[in-house]
């Protein structure tokens, strides 16, 4: 009966696909997940890693929080987070190390057709905007910072992260440092109780909302503003200068802390002191979280050594500043702790 034939053929085909699916590839797969902040840089590493060692790097930007959870649950080989692990997260991760492997900045993006790029902004005003207290682009506070610029009376549409994000941690860390009101009402974290705004998933989601909504303001890794031709602010640092999130600004901020914490390797370079005149105040390191005992220890060591040395050369065109030497030394020492 021909119909039974078709049926059997279909089942056989399904089983054949299933069989092919169980065939092992020749590449070693290294799976990681987490920060969307570092995702553009990691994406550049996939192909050279494949050529250098034959590794197939699979990375998914699910947010720093997701990366920490995933590596804790050992559903991935490594996690990536811009927010440093807390003591609780370290103990939950059971023998994980935290290694700073990239350095960049969070740009504050805006969409104002007809208005120039690099408008001036300062911390307290930014906090008021994101708390919903300043609602219009031609508010006096914004006009004061940008004398001579014609600002429209468009409503400010806020875009923030809906997922647990290290970029949110960096942004709210900065806002808590410059605004006592923000610190007491909202605080800093991978997610906060945003009083207003639309939530986007991942840095792409925020960039998407900003690029599609005239009058929008949002925050994302500066690499996303480049890729999508979005405008961003020059932020007033403690020295009173309006700094941009370029390599100079990031390096200026990084100079303020080159000693990773001896226990956790974390570094804080947000809102650096006055003497760092060129510093962009919302810069941050981003970390890779790896279990010290992993079935892929040898591959991970090779991958991470490559990432913190050769991998850094892929950074500058995406506005990732290569990590400074003192930090590199600590990073390499920590990588050797990954055994099998």
């Amino acid at each position, binding site marked *: 009966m021909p119909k039974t034939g078709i049926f059997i053929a279909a089942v056989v085909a399904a089983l054949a*696909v299933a069989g092919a*699916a169980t065939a092992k590839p020749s590449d070693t797969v290294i799976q990681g997940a987490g920060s969307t902040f570092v995702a553009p840089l990691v994406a550049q590493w996939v192909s050279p890693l494949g050529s250098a060692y034959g590794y197939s790097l699979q990375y998914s930007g699910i947010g720093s929080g997701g990366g920490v959870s995933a590596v804790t649950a050992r559903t991935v080989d490594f996690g990536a987070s811009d927010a440093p692990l807390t003591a609780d997260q370290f103990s939950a991760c059971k023998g994980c190390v935290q290694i700073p492997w990239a350095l960049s900045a969070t740009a504050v993006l805006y969409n104002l057709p007809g208005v120039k790029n690099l408008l001036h902004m300062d911390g307290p005003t930014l906090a008021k905007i994101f708390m919903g207290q300043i609602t219009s682009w031609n508010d006096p506070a914004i006009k004061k910072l940008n004398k001579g610029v014609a600002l429209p009376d468009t409503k400010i549409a806020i875009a923030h992260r809906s997922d647990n994000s290290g970029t949110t941690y960096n942004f709210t860390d900065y806002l808590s440092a410059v605004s006592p009101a923000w610190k007491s009402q909202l605080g800093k974290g991978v997610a906060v109780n945003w009083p207003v705004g639309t939530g986007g998933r991942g840095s792409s989601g925020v960039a998407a909302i900003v690029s599609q909504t005239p009058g929008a303001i949002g925050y994302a890794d500066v690499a996303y503003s480049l890729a999508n031709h979005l405008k961003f602010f020059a932020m007033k640092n403690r020295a009173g200068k309006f700094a941009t999130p370029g390599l100079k600004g990031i390096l200026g901020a990084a100079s303020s802390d080159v000693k990773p914490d001896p226990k956790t390797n974390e570094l804080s370079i947000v809102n650096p002191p006055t003497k760092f005149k060129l510093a962009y105040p919302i810069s941050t390191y981003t970390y890779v979280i790896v279990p010290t005992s992993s079935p892929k220890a040898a591959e991970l060591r090779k991958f991470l050594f490559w990432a913190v040395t050769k991998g850094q050369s892929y950074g500058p065109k995406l506005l990732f500043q290569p990590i400074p030497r003192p930090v590199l030394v600590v990073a390499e020492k920590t990588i050797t702790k990954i055994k099998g």
Partner: protein
Amino acid sequence: MALHGITRADMAAVNLPRRKAVNRLMEGLTWLAAIVGVALLVIIVWSVARRAWGALNLDLFTKDQVLFAIGPVHQGLRNAFVGSLVLVGLATAMALPVGILIAIYLTEYARPWIRSSVSLVLDVLNGIPAIVVAIFVFGLFVVGHGQSGYAGAFALACLMLPLVARSVMEVLLLVPSSLREASLGLGVPRWRTVLAIVLPQAMGGIITGAVLAIARIAGETAPLLFTSSIVGTQISWDASHALQSIPVAIFELSESPDPADHSRAWAGAFVLLMFILLLSLSARWLAARSRRRISTSR
């Protein structure tokens, strides 16, 4: 004739012009509803087709995704198409045999109370939201082991199972009992009757049911969201690691700021839609054919 003592003449006398007007209004609204219903479908499919047009090229099927491409790069959705093929194939391989066995048990062996209880359980399974199935499979297979194509396929299979079981059951019940009687009366053992006589007779309906179930899960995103979403961009047939799929790819691309990503999302959506429509139409055609066969063979 009269109803409750009211004659036709009485009815006609009562306010006929107004009643006729109300009737015309309602008929108009009903026509409007139908037009809106059809228009919605046409608008959506047309939207997808129009926006997919620019990105429907050979690259879509021959090149893999490239994330965060700097400058214009030739890319496509090949890794997602392949991944979807593997996931749907595995899910079908998992759900189809089990579904058929359940249907056989319920129609040939089960006592009435068992049949109604298991049917109820299958209906419950059918009503569980896909996102809850995703949480379940995540907790069962992904925690501690990592995502994999198998976990994703299993989640899809959980959604397929009640559809397959129910449709095969309906078809088996349509097979005339006289056929079973005759076979058993000739001394053919029950198991052979079921497998060699009843099942082939129901084959058209079984295929229809399977095709419809495949059409249903081919576009499912939620079950794959936590089980097979941390993927690389290279083409892969290996289900022991997570595989990219078209629905998840569309989901991710839809939230991107890049218009080129949107075009690819539309293209993927168009291909997915055409695939599902093709399956549904084939199922409909197969069903009509087997209905004609059964009615002529009676």
